């Protein structure tokens, strides 16, 4: 349904004085989402993941430059088409309650989302009731204001804005932080249901455990690019089934595994090394790694962007 090839998102921002510099936050990122599938994009927080969501929806700030190609159901996603589709076929589930208008009742906001996705007001009204019942939100929620909602209720309201329409692709941007584990599971369950009903779900998160609960495939995001596209099941077989050294380090860092953190930090977006971005921290690093960016190649049913990874 959604194909993204070597997407690049860069900002021209100001340094201290008057000079400008470019931050390439996303470099040649590839990802694709099929209908009925949940694809998780997992990466350290602050590495520009939610910018991917904004890029797909076309709501980047205007000092951003966009490169690479994006297609949706076979057709190129031009800015005009993005504008036509967003809210109707491509919907966003944002992270915080701040995305809700503080002075407007929650019911009205969700109904507005429904109307924007093409439904007339009477049908939209029913859609809202249906969605609230589906996510077992009490009847009074419609009259409530955003600041009166608990974390979980707010999350369910945000998800219901995606449900009221006839969306084909749902992009969930960090749905899990700051919630009680039981509610996290519940939210992820809702996303899974959407996928099972035929939507494509792009789950952007830093919480690898949460991703593994519902994702079919996991794209590992490092310094602005996808270093590996693995099946969720690969993670079940331990580090050996994984391909890229960074994914292995991620897996090892999990508490239920060896709980060893990886040394060093991600490269700075305005001074990306020429070669492999993971070179400085990679145990398998060789001279060849630093010459050119490794291409993304298929390996054991997944993709990896490392010349040393082998079967």
């Amino acid at each position, binding site marked *: 349904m959604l194909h993204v090839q070597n997407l690049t998102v*860069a*900002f*021209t*921002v*100001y340094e201290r004085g*008057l000079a*400008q*510099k*470019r931050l*390439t936050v996303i470099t040649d990122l590839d990802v694709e989402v099929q209908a009925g599938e949940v694809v998780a994009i997992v990466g350290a927080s602050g590495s520009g993941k939610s910018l991917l969501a904004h890029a797909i929806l*076309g*709501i*980047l*700030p*205007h*000092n*951003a*430059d*966009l*490169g690479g190609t994006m297609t949706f159901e076979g057709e190129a996603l*031009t*800015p*005009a088409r*993005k*504008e036509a589709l967003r809210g109707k076929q491509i919907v966003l589930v944002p992270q915080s309650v*701040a995305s809700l208008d*503080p002075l407007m009742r929650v019911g009205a906001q969700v109904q507005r989302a429904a109307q924007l996705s093409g439904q007339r007001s009477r049908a939209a009204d029913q859609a809202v009731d249906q969605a609230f019942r589906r996510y077992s939100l009490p009847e009074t929620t419609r009259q409530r204001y955003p*600041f009166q909602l608990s974390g979980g209720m707010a999350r369910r309201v945000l998800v219901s804005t995606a449900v009221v329409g006839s969306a084909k692709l749902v992009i969930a941007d960090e749905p899990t932080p700051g919630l009680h584990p039981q509610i996290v599971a519940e939210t992820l369950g809702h996303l899974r249901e959407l996928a099972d009903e035929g939507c494509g779900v792009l789950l952007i998160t830093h919480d690898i455990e949460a991703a593994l609960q519902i994702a079919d495939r996991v794209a590992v995001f490092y310094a602005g690019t996808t270093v590996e596209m693995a099946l969720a099941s690969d993670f079940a077989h331990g580090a050996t089934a994984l391909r890229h050294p960074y994914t292995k380090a991620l897996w090892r860092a999990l508490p239920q595994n060896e709980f060893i953190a990886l040394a060093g930090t991600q490269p700075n977006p*305005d*001074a*990306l090394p020429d070669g492999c971005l993971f070179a400085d921290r990679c145990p398998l690093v060789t001279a060849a790694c630093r010459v050119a960016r490794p291409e993304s190649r298929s390996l054991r049913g997944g993709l990896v962007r490392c010349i040393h990874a082998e079967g």
Partner: protein
Amino acid sequence: MSQSSTTPATTTLSSSGKVARIYPWQMNRRQKTVLTIGLCLGFFALALLGGRIIGDAGLSTNLPSRNQAPSLAHPFGTDWLGRDMLTRTLHGLSLSLWVGLLAATFSAVIGAALGTIAATIGGWVDTLLTWCIDVFFSLPHLVLLIMIAFAVGGGTTGVIIAVACTHWTGLARIIRAEVLQLRSAPYVQLAAQFGRSPTWIACEHMLPHLVPQFLVGLILLFPHAILHEAGLTFIGIGLSPHLPAIGIILAESMRYLATGYWWLAAMPGAALLIAVKLFDVLGEHVRALIDPKTRQS
């Protein structure tokens, strides 16, 4: 804030990460901002020193050459006493700029401070301050101005203090309403739960949000203070009416509007308008620089 489609900026990607510009003179947004701020300050300096630069030869009366249209000899024309309007306008600007600036800043600061205090501390303090605002609002403008200006001894200081003490109420109410809304923002309540004192919260969290409204209020007060200076002068409490101050020149030129001597009103009016517009541009760019949302664009 971006338009619906992301149009690539006019700069090309360079491998080194530094921005390569297509044309050397093309500045990025921030350089333009700083340049404009420089220009504005330059103009104000010119306005302040203009009076001295042009000297006051043109200020003496010259009855035969009165009411002359703008010409090379007198770019702004001459007034009903034959005085050169350009000299008078420049002197007027340098005089009024101080009065307008000081009066506007004082009253804006008082207004913002009291507005914030009223909303943050709330309770009886808020009731007391809103009550004071009501008292100041209901006393006719002019009465207060006359009394305070007279009590302080008239002249420019009288005008500044009078305007400062009477014009803070409008801004105080707007800032109070703004802070009332901010007070219920999550990050403010969070800071409160962390045990921060209301004053710390007010300074750290609320003031940055108030800057735009504060600047708008300040910029609007600037010409208002100048026009009040003229009002007081004609009652005999401000300056002597023949001293060139923009407000006075404009008020006096009012009488000649019907006579068709348009330049008496148009030229000083334009000068004041440019001064106010530049204040707006200055304010707008300073806000663009310090407001995180617009810093990067």
